[in-house]
């Protein structure tokens, strides 16, 4: 799949933003006044910024209101609805914390639940696609949630839980990479089933329908960059999981946490780039590619 910058930015930023909102909603840390202002400003900047970035890849973004209509069937629509609901609830909660120094905690719990559900819906947009076997697995939502809550936990200064969640994310990431590498093959979809000609012999793509490029190839048969996949995996894992864990275990001072969050965010960008670049769509089979 084509690793579009806007979608990478969206999933990384809003993942961290909603992760932080979850912790704030739980009252961890229970901040008021100016402190609350800075925490919530950061969380909203990340969450809203990410959502805005996601509209950059739309062909007709001015019609975005329609995307809230199909929550009964569509994970993308659900994500939009949940995100808005979460931002409204947490917006109220933030107002209370910043200006009134008194919060109604149940509101925060609802906001936290909505934040988690938003990240879950984001992950399901990818995990639901049978056409991309690498994504079509329970490990995708688990990984997205662990990263979001772990990264958000770092931002919220919840070092203990963040360490546990990042460790879980690390394990899930390794599992997702290792099990994902073979999943396309396991699913049994190949050029033979794609053309229905596999029962007759060995099928080879002889001639493509067009000599130039097209939308399908650019969007779904993105093969460039996969050659550096192993190196990038190492970089992503080191920055996203290993470095933050080591840093906050050395010391949980504000400076160390800042450093850990920066590493984590950079690593997550690399990880998300790979998430798209390494994902093979079955349509590539029609072109004799993966």
């Amino acid at each position: 799949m084509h690793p579009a910058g806007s979608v990478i930015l969206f999933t990384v930023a809003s993942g961290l933003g909603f992760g932080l909102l979850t912790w704030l909603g739980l009252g961890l840390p229970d901040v008021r006044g100016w402190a609350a202002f800075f925490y919530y400003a950061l969380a909203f900047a990340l969450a809203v910024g990410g959502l805005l970035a996601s509209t950059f890849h739309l062909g007709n973004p001015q019609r975005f209101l329609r995307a809230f209509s199909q929550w009964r069937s569509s994970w993308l629509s659900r994500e939009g609805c949940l995100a808005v609901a979460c931002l409204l609830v947490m917006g109220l909660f933030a107002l209370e914390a910043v200006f009134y120094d008194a919060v109604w905690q149940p509101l925060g719990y609802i906001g936290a639940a909505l934040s988690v559900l938003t990240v879950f819906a984001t992950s399901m947009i990818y995990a639901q696609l049978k056409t991309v076997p690498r994504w079509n697995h329970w490990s995708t939502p688990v990984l997205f949630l662990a990263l979001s809550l772990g990264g958000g936990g770092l931002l919220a200064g919840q070092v203990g839980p963040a360490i546990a969640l990042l460790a879980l994310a690390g394990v899930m990431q390794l599992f997702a990479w290792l099990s994902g590498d073979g999943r396309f093959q396991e699913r049994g979809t190949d050029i033979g089933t794609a053309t229905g000609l596999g029962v007759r012999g060995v099928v080879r793509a002889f001639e493509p329908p067009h000599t130039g490029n097209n939308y399908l190839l650019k969007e779904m048969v993105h093969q460039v960059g996969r050659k550096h996949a192993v190196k990038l995996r190492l970089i992503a894992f080191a920055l996203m999981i290993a470095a933050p864990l080591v840093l906050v275990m050395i010391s949980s001072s504000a400076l160390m946490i800042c450093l850990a969050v920066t590493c984590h965010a950079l690593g997550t960008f690399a990880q998300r780039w790979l998430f798209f670049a390494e994902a093979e769509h079955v349509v590539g089979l029609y072109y004799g590619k993966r």
Partner: protein
Amino acid sequence: MTTLPETSAKKLGLVIDLDTCVGCHACVVSCKGWNTENYGAALSDQDPYGADPSGTFLNRVHSYEVQPETGTAQLIHFPKSCLHCEDAPCVTVCPTGASYKRSEDGIVLVNEDACIGCGLCAWACPYGAREMDQAAGVMKKCTLCVDRIYNGNLPEEDRVPSCVRTCPSGARHFGDLGDESSEVSQLVAARGGMDLMPELGTKPVNKYLPPRPKDVPADLDILAPYLEPVSGTQKGFLGWLDKALEKL
């Protein structure tokens, strides 16, 4: 609504005969023509006369080589467009309700006025049947020429999809695959029509007729026996002449 209709009694679709398709791409051209001039946003081209041309097409013809265990390889031309799946994943993922499947005849369409151009439906389709138009920013796909098949202004014989009307080798058939007695259903039954990627559970309405086995006559070349090279020793006058000449 992007939830799928429970069932549609009528299942309009195409039956494509891989045995007869000659790979001329006439259907591709006629599809592009009809769908650029009629319903919805035109099928745009980018850099059409430049070094890197590309464009939106709703139908494309691939060619495959199949090498059986024994015998010679076979070349098969393979037209591919939307299969109007019964369990269409492209419809349920759509956040806006722009993508929908009609309950009256099963045609899968995009309401271009509602499409935000997110591209998720193209990701959900296993067959590469949806292409985002780069000029209009909306999703384009085969409409089964919904603006021809019910069009009373056209002569009866033109009320079929443009590709079907155009195909010079009769490799494309249009009809109701929900009706067992229809010509297309009978064709599918007689020729063992197949689904593409059945394992993905999309239940395509369009069917593909596999190539028939090649005829292998006992002796392909009826003239061969008469053209056998003359061998052995000649008898009679010719034999004498041959020997005499050899001795010279």
